[in-house]
């Protein structure tokens, strides 16, 4: 199965495609028997001896044995450790309820901010934006957020300052933006300076020098969702000529 999967890395797979584990009926006695172990990421599901594709997208592979499907979905499912942009919807007792775009609202303790104590409460209002990290996220429990890392530092998380625009893009684009040496990001950097906060839940917050520029960045990112690299570069070049 491993070789079958490796053959199709980089190809587009559709839900319903499947891989069968080919059981060899001959066992060589001289060579050591090595067990094939695969790690299935999102989009791949095991069903008995078969490996089913359950999302449409490109098959990716990370050595030695991790496979997953890189898809363009928009629905977010919380996962532990991911950083997201949330909107505070309610303050109830000692927790904030935060909308992260998942099926359920996440809870955020008011003590989970840098420097927060029982006396010293963070200044968070309903409707504020937060950049936070999941510390509990599984399918049976309410997800929990925190705005501090394990050492108690904010490390970039917390409440957003004023201004800027929030918009939604697909999760695939978010991952492409966050990838090291991301080409979308480097294209964007050449346009004009802007602040960009990218949450893994598909929300992106942008703040540039003027409202016009913020709108341009937001619309560029939203439209580059379904473009090839060359199309995107052409578009960015056009904007650059127009903007300068």
């Amino acid at each position: 199965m491993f070789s079958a999967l490796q053959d199709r890395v980089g190809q587009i797979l559709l839900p319903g495609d499947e891989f069968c584990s080919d059981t060899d009926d001959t066992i060589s006695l001289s060579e050591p028997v090595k067990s094939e172990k695969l790690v299935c990421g999102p989009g791949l599901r095991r069903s008995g001896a078969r490996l089913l594709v359950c999302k449409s997208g490109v098959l990716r592979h990370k050595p030695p044995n991790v496979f997953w499907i890189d898809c363009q979905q928009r629905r977010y499912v919380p996962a532990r450790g991911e950083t997201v942009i949330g909107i505070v919807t309610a303050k109830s007792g000692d927790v904030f309820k935060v909308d992260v775009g998942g099926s359920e609202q996440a809870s955020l303790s008011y003590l989970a901010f840098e420097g927060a104590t029982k006396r010293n409460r963070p200044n968070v209002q309903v409707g504020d934006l937060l950049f936070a990290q999941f510390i509990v996220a599984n399918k049976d429990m309410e997800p929990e957020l925190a705005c501090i890392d394990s050492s108690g530092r904010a490390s970039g998380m917390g409440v957003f300052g004023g201004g800027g625009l929030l918009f939604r893009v697909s999760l695939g684009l978010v991952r492409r933006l966050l990838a090291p040496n991301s080409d979308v990001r480097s294209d964007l950097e050449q346009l004009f300076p802007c602040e960009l906060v990218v949450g893994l839940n598909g929300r992106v917050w942008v703040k540039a020098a003027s409202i016009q520029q913020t709108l341009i960045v937001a619309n560029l990112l939203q439209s580059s969702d379904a473009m090839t690299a060359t199309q995107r570069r052409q578009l960015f070049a056009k904007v650059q000529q127009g903007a300068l």
Partner: protein
Amino acid sequence: MKETPLSNCERDFLLKAIEEKKRLDGRQTYDYRTIKVTFGTDYGCCFVDLGKTRVMAQVSCEIVAPKESRPNEGIVFFNIELSPMASPTFEQGRQSELSVKLNRQLERCLRNSKCIDTESLCVVSGEKVWQIRVDVHVLNHDGNLMDASSIAAITALCHFRRPDVSTQGDEITVYSPEERDPIPLSVYHMPICVSFSFFQQGTYLLVDPCEREERVMDGLLMIAMNKHREICSIQSSGGIMLLKEQVMRCSKIASVKVSEITELVGKALENDRKARKAGEKCGFAESLPQERITALKTDKTPVEAMDVTEKVDDIIQKAEVPPLSVPSPSLPVPGVGQVGQNTWGLDEEEEEEEEGEEDRDSSGEEEEKGTKTQKEKDKDEVVELSDSEEEEVVILHPDT
């Protein structure tokens, strides 16, 4: 599902942008989003795209008893359906405040303006009249549902044809479309609704608000007008005070917008009529552009097709003799009745690979071209039965 809350940041930004006369999608203050009108294969089915907002209207008719107060008038009935498909906040089956409001406005816009000649819908006075039912389904919600549904409803009414009827004594005959051509409804005028949203207590005005703009607006003014500049209905909601000049200005803008939209709808109807007359393919599927996601496009990989013949021979040699008891008498011989032939949607690639061999005989499996389909065909020819072992071979090589 609960609505995604609007953050303070978005609200502030939108209001600030509106102050600077900027909109989220780069439109000007008085611009509409792109309107697209398409028709289904049936009469009276119309899709309207207003930017990302998408609405479908379907008109249907039946013969019912008239209302006692109006014995010689047909009945026109409107229904707006907000399905959860349009937005996760819409709930199935329950009449929400929004749907009641839209329904009411649509009735006021189309029924109360008497744009449909209801008297021509009478079959037998006091006994039988046509009931025209307009179902408007919202398929996607990105703001300004009212304008989209009013355009969809009136266009569908113009497009609709009802069956012809004749009365002889007590006998009423309804003719099928094959016997007699269906009759269009008599539409006097086309009222079209134009929405204006107001911000900062009426200081700023926008035409055709999108969903996020609708959520930060203070008030909404809907003017239904026809191309003769007659106001059919006017409604203000949100509780803001408007000055007389503002309403006058809005009605002037509305008259311009309505004449533009009426022209567009007229063109769409004309195009559809021509296509139907010429017997061309018409309907919804024809009007869809072939959209493709290109971001994940991978380069074409050449198919290795050198040793396929040997492989096929090998398979033939190894294949067991099929059992003589045939489960189904029909043999999948290619070239005889190729309805159920397995093509696997490979036509495109096949064409590219087989350029210059246009006159490929479909039953000519001797041709050693060696695409996968051909291979399968060869196999079909030899094995002739759906042998389980052979099927496994097909599964193992799904790639082309």
